[in-house]
C-alpha cells in the first residue's frame, strides 16, 4: 500500500522551542491510523504539520519532509497548500461547539465548501449538502440545513463538522479528538460513521485520540507519541497483543476494563514533561519502570519490530 500522507523524520519548532523530534508516520487510502498519547505529547502539532498549518502558531518544520500524494508540502506555495486543505484534506476539530459559525445557517456553512472547492453552483451544492447530511444519518436533513448551530445538539454539530470535512470529497481526513466533547453513546455513533466512511469511500483517516479503547475498536495502525517523539508504531493487533514500548503498555493499562481486579488501575506516575524541560536520554525514563542508566543517558534509536517500529532500550517481546 502506498502512503497518501507520509511524514519522514519531521521535527518542528515554535520559536526556539523544539516540540517534535523526528516523527515518521504514514497513512494509506482505506486505512485508519490512530495517533495517541497524553496531552502535550505532540498529537495535534503533528496534525498541523501534516496540513501545513504550523505558520498559524508561529511554528515551522526544521527537519524532515511532509509528503501528500507524493508531493512535498514544503515545495508548494501557500496558495497550493490552501487548495489542498478542504479539497483533498478534510479536518474535523475537537470542539464542534466552536467550529461552526453561530450566525450562519447550517446548510450554508456546508454548501460553501463544495462551492469553493468543487466549483458547484448554489443548487448543486445544496443537493450535495443534503446528500451528505443524510449519509451521516441526520434525520430531516432539509430542516437541519435551515437550522442555526445553537439549535443542534453536540453530536449533531459534530456530524455537521464531519459533513463539512467531507464536502470537498477529500482523500484524507484528519480528525483531532472528534468525540472528546461528546456523550459516550454519541461517541460510539460518530466513531462508527467515521469507520464506515473509510471502508466505503476508501479515504485515509488519521484519528487523533487519547483513548486506547477507540484505537482498538476502529484503527488499523497506531502511532504512539510521547513528549514529541514517536514511541511505537505498527499494526493494531500485534501492538495490543504485546506492546513493545512500556508507554504503550501503560496507556492500554489506563483503560478500566471488565473483570479488572480492584486496585489494578494505577495510571502512569508523574506527568508529561514540558517542552522546556525534556529529560535527557529517553524522555519517558522518569515515569518508566524498566528505566536503566542507559535510558537516562542515551536516546533510544527507532528500530523495526514486527511490521512496525519501536524506540526503546528495553522493548517487550513479540507475542
Amino acid at each position, binding site marked *: 500500500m502506498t502512503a497518501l500522507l507520509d511524514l519522514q523524520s519531521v521535527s518542528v519548532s515554535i520559536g526556539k522551542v523544539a516540540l517534535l523530534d523526528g516523527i515518521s508516520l504514514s497513512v494509506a487510502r482505506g486505512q485508519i491510523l490512530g495517533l495517541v498519547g*497524553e*496531552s502535550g505529547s505532540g498529537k495535534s502539532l503533528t496534525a498541523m504539520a501534516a496540513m501545513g498549518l504550523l505558520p498559524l502558531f508561529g511554528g515551522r518544520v526544521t527537519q524532515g519532509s511532509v509528503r501528500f500524494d507524493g508531493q512535498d508540502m514544503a515545495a508548494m506555495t501557500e496558495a497550493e497548500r490552501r487548495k489542498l486543505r478542504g479539497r483533498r484534506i478534510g479536518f474535523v476539530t475537537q470542539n464542534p461547539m466552536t467550529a461552526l459559525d453561530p450566525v450562519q445557517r447550517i446548510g450554508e456553512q456546508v454548501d460553501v465548501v463544495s462551492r469553493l472547492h468543487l466549483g458547484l453552483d448554489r443548487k448543486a451544492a445544496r443537493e450535495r449538502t443534503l446528500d451528505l447530511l443524510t449519509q451521516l*444519518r441526520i*434525520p430531516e436533513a432539509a430542516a437541519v440545513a435551515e437550522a442555526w448551530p445553537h439549535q443542534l*445538539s*453536540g453530536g*449533531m454539530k459534530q456530524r455537521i463538522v464531519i459533513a463539512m470535512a467531507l464536502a470537498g470529497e477529500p482523500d484524507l481526513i484528519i480528525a483531532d479528538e472528534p468525540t472528546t466533547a461528546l*456523550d*459516550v*453513546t*454519541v*461517541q*460510539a*455513533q460518530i*466513531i*462508527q460513521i467515521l469507520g464506515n466512511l473509510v471502508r466505503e469511500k476508501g479515504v485515509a483517516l488519521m484519528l487523533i485520540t*487519547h*483513548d*486506547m*479503547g*477507540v*484505537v*482498538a*475498536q*476502529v484503527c488499523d495502525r497506531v502511532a504512539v507519541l510521547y513528549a514529541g517523539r514517536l514511541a511505537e508504531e505498527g499494526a*493494531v*493487533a500485534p501492538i*495490543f*497483543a504485546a506492546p513493545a514500548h512500556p508507554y504503550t503498555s*501503560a*496507556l*492500554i*493499562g*489506563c*483503560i*478500566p*476494563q*471488565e*473483570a*479488572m481486579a*480492584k*486496585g489494578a*488501575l*494505577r*495510571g*502512569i*506516575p508523574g*506527568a508529561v514533561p514540558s517542552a522546556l524541560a525534556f529529560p535527557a536520554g529517553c524522555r519517558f525514563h522518569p515515569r518508566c519502570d524498566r528505566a536503566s542508566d542507559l535510558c537516562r543517558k542515551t536516546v533510544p534509536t527507532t528500530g523495526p519490530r514486527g511490521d512496525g517500529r519501536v524506540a526503546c532500550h528495553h522493548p517487550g517481546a513479540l507475542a
Partner: protein
Amino acid sequence: MTAPLIQIDRLSKRFQSGGGIFAKPRVMMAVRDVSLTIGKGEVLGVVGESGCGKSTLARLVLRLIDPTAGRVSFDGTEITALSPAALRKMRRRMAMVFQDPYSSLDPRHTLAEVLAEPFRAQGEPFPPDRLPEMLAAVGLPATMASSYPHQLSGGQRQRVGIARALALNPDLVVLDEPTASLDVSIQAQIIALLADLRDRLGLTYLFISHDLGLVRYFCDRIVVMYLGAVVEVLPNTTTAPRHPYTHALMQSNFAPDPARRRAIEPLTGEIPSPFALPPGCAFASRCPRASDHCRRETPALGGETAHPVACFHPL
C-alpha cells in the same frame, strides 16, 4: 447492606427558564422522583449522559440546592428540613470534589489558603501543623503549600480538590466527574488515590460519571439515570444490564482489545428536550425495543428489589 448513611426519598427538582410578563417560563424536571440509599462505606456510582440530572442529584444530596419535592436524610437526620445553622454543622460531615479542577480553586489563593477554607467556613481555627499531612495524604509534597493553582498540573489540582474535601474528616464525599477533564493516565492515578483513601478512612462515596466502564471498575452499586429519572440500579459491577439504555451505554464503551472489536448498534434518534418530554418512557424515541405501550405509559422502577429496572420490555 450496611446501615444507610444517605436515604433519598422521592426526590424531585424542577428548574424553569425564561418567562416574562407575557412569556410563559419553560419548565424542566432535572430530577424526577428519585429514591435511593447509600450504605456506610459504600461507593455508589451514578451514571448517565449530559442532562440526565446526575449533577443536580449530587447537589441535592448535599443540599447545595433545595429540592422541589422529596427528602434527603443523612445518618438519620433529615437534612432537607434543617435550619441553616444546623445544616452548616452537618455539612462538616459531607464534602464535594468538583469536575473542573481549573475553576474550582481560587487562582489568588495558595494551596495553604485553599486548604484552610473548610475550617474557616466552620468557624474553626486552622491547625497549620496539619498542612503537610493533608498534602501528603493526596500524594503532594509539603513544599507545595505556598504554590498557586496555576503552577500545578490538572492532576495535581484535582489532588488539592480532594485534600480540601477531606479537610474536616467527612463521612460522605460526593465526586462529581472528578476525572472527566483529565488525561486517562492521570484519571487512573486519581481513581487509585480515591480507592486508597476510601480504604484508609472508611469513606462513603457518591461517584457521578458518564463513563460506565470507569464506574463498573470503581463502584459497588450503579445507578443509571436517563433524563432525570433512575432507569436501573445494578446491584454489583458484574450484573448484566436489563434496561436497553444501560445496554447501549455498555456497548458504547470500547475495550482496549482489538480481538473484541464489534459491530456497534448505535442508538438512533435524538435525546428529547428535557423541556418537552414526550409522554411514556423518555428513552422510547431511541430504544430498539420500544412499543406503543412505551410511548403511552411511563414504566415505573420495579422488578427485583436488589436489581430494579424501569422498562416494559427488559432484556
